[in-house]
């Protein structure tokens, strides 16, 4: 019954999109999106985030949402509605996250969720852009004098059981013919305490979790991250419902705007000054002085300026959440492409 209703609604939307496309003389990308329309009508973006995880989405002592994922939500709201605080955050658990997105309860899901084949195909979700690349990361005591993973031969690492973390280490040992020992724990708190007490030389988990573990140590400065990761790449990013390309595009380009701001060196502090009649064509495009980039996305042309002014560029947000002012995790893979990282974006012109 509801399937029929949904299908009818979809066909209607499709027909409307086609009509709109045929009607407009210029071959513009149709910015006609049901989600975008709903967000504008509501005057509020409903963003699904984690119920609480250091770095990505957490609440400070005043109860305000902070984090890398949260900043993306605020940037979308800023682009569409002109204010970064017009967001309703819904904390979602890992079991319900995709169904609340599919049911339409949230407009976008940005919840440290990994991009995967099944989620893209079988679950019918779009994967607009990756805001955090990670992989199994190691944190070791500085006193160990180890700079790279293979040098951990003979060391003991605290690991959580029942995950692929352990098998990844075993595979790595076999492939490199070394012996990294593991000490297994059921719960993260126990493993943290054991590492802090010196029962093991290091701790391993995905990048974000290791960074969180480090900040619980008595002396975080005594610990360092190794640059290598094992067990493959884990790209984490936003999810949108399939069938609303215009909305997916908007979510994607909001992330790219934060990257572009970093490439152009625009920060929160100087965004307004840099926007005052710049000569550089890249800056003119970014600030909406040339071209109709905002219109093509279904928002106004100052959208990117607002994001840079209110949220800041990607590097600033990373610095505040995962970087030096946050959990102390080096940029690594999340550096810009020209700094040896994976964060890259299409050109704007």
């Amino acid at each position, binding site marked *: 019954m509801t399937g029929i209703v949904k299908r009818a*609604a979809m066909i209607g939307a499709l027909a409307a999109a086609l009509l709109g496309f045929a009607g407009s003389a210029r071959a513009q990308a149709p910015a006609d999106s049901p989600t975008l329309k709903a967000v504008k009508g509501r005057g509020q973006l409903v963003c699904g985030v984690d119920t609480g995880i*250091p770095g990505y989405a*957490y*609440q400070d002592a*005043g*109860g305000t949402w902070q984090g890398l994922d949260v900043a993306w939500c605020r940037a979308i709201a800023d682009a569409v509605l002109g204010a970064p605080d017009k967001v309703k955050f819904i904390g979602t658990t890992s079991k*319900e996250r995709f169904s609340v997105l599919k049911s339409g309860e949230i407009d976008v899901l940005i919840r440290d969720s990994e991009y995967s084949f099944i989620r893209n195909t079988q679950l019918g979700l779009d994967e607009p852009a990756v805001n955090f690349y990670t992989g199994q990361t190691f944190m070791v005591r500085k006193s160990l004098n180890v700079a790279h993973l293979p040098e951990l031969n003979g060391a003991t690492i605290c690991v959580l059981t029942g995950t692929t973390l352990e098998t990844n280490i075993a595979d790595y040992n076999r492939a490199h013919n070394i012996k990294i020992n593991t000490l297994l724990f059921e719960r993260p708190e126990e493993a943290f305490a054991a590492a802090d007490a010196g029962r093991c030389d290091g701790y391993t988990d995905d990048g974000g979790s290791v960074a969180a573990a480090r900040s*619980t140590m008595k002396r975080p400065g005594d610990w360092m991250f190794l640059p290598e990761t094992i067990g493959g790449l884990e790209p984490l990013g936003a999810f949108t419902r399939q069938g609303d390309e215009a909305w997916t595009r908007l979510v994607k380009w909001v992330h790219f705007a934060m990257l572009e701001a970093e490439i152009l060196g625009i920060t929160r502090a100087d965004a307004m000054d840099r926007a005052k009649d710049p000569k550089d064509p890249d800056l003119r495009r970014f600030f909406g002085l040339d071209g109709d980039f905002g219109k093509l996305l279904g928002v106004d042309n100052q959208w990117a300026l607002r994001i840079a002014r209110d949220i800041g560029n990607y590097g600033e947000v990373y610095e505040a959440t995962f970087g030096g002012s946050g959990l102390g995790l080096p940029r690594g893979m999340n550096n810009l492409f020209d700094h040896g990282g994976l964060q890259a974006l299409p050109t704007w012109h």
Partner: protein
Amino acid sequence: MSGGSVAMRLKPPRERRAGTAAWAASWLRANLFDTWTNTLLTLLVVAAAALILPPLWRWGVAHATLSGTTRAACRGGGACWTFIRVRLPLFFYGHYPAAARWRVDLSFVLLAVFAAPVLRTRTRRRGLAVLLLVTLFPALAAVLLAGGVFGLMPVETNAWGGLMLDVVIAFVTVAGSLPLGVLLALGRRSHLPVVRALAIGFIELWRGVPLLTVLFMSAVMVPLFLPQGVSLDRLVRALVALILFNAAYMAEVVRGGLQGVPPGQQEAAFSLGLGWWRMQALVVLPQALRIAVPAIVNTVVDLFKDTTLVSIVGLADLLGVVSQALKDPAWLGFPTEGYVFAAAMFFVCCFAMSAYGRRIERQLAAGR
């Protein structure tokens, strides 16, 4: 810790002290050292207390920190209660806007005002008091908490949280599930086969599924059945699920009470010419509910603790807010403090409820 209060107590006069000492010795002999097994148990308990209490005291009180505003203040090596203190408003109100928190406070005052005549044992018009508590009070509280009328700023339920949310959920669930449970219990004992079958079916269905799955259904499945664009509030969905689930338990508790009423009462009521509904309302139910009070209190205490389960569907109750607080990078590493605080809050609430239940029982027993 009562050690301090004992030391502070005034010394009794010398002649009475001898008497007190003798009395204490005989009390100890009679209660703690009367048989050799009891002596052994007493010594074991004392040894266990000596082993556990001093470190607990050192952690929780002696070396604990309460002052300061950042984690840097916590250097004593004991518990860091600063973590709790700086987030206390969050733990009580959730994200409820600070400027509107008086509305929550006022709602609680109203709850006390409306509940007092119901809870007091000698009330003339208890029926009226109960009616006001479950009709007028929820209406007033809903207006106060949700706002949006009379110039009150609207506060979405997604901002409700902390202990306040637990209380709201527990109240609504009890107020909804108890009447429904009474109807179901009557239905289950009805002589009309369809009514009885429906009541049994409902009760067995809801008792047969775990609460967790019911909540998941409400959070995950219900939105899929609703037409696109129509979204039912998360809290409302959870509340409906909790009411239906607990109504089944209440029904069985009330049925136990109904079975405890001698059949002669019902027959006497019939012979007086009372109809079925009046017979139930005036004769049977008052006696049945009286019998069921301990079991109802037990269910309510259980239900209050079950409200923490809503955190798995993304509602931020006290436990949910505490676990969120544990994820703040500026305050990582204090899970013990957070969970001890939550446990203490729940203990206080549940203990108060069961203490009240015991008092009611005693009074009912005396009235018999």
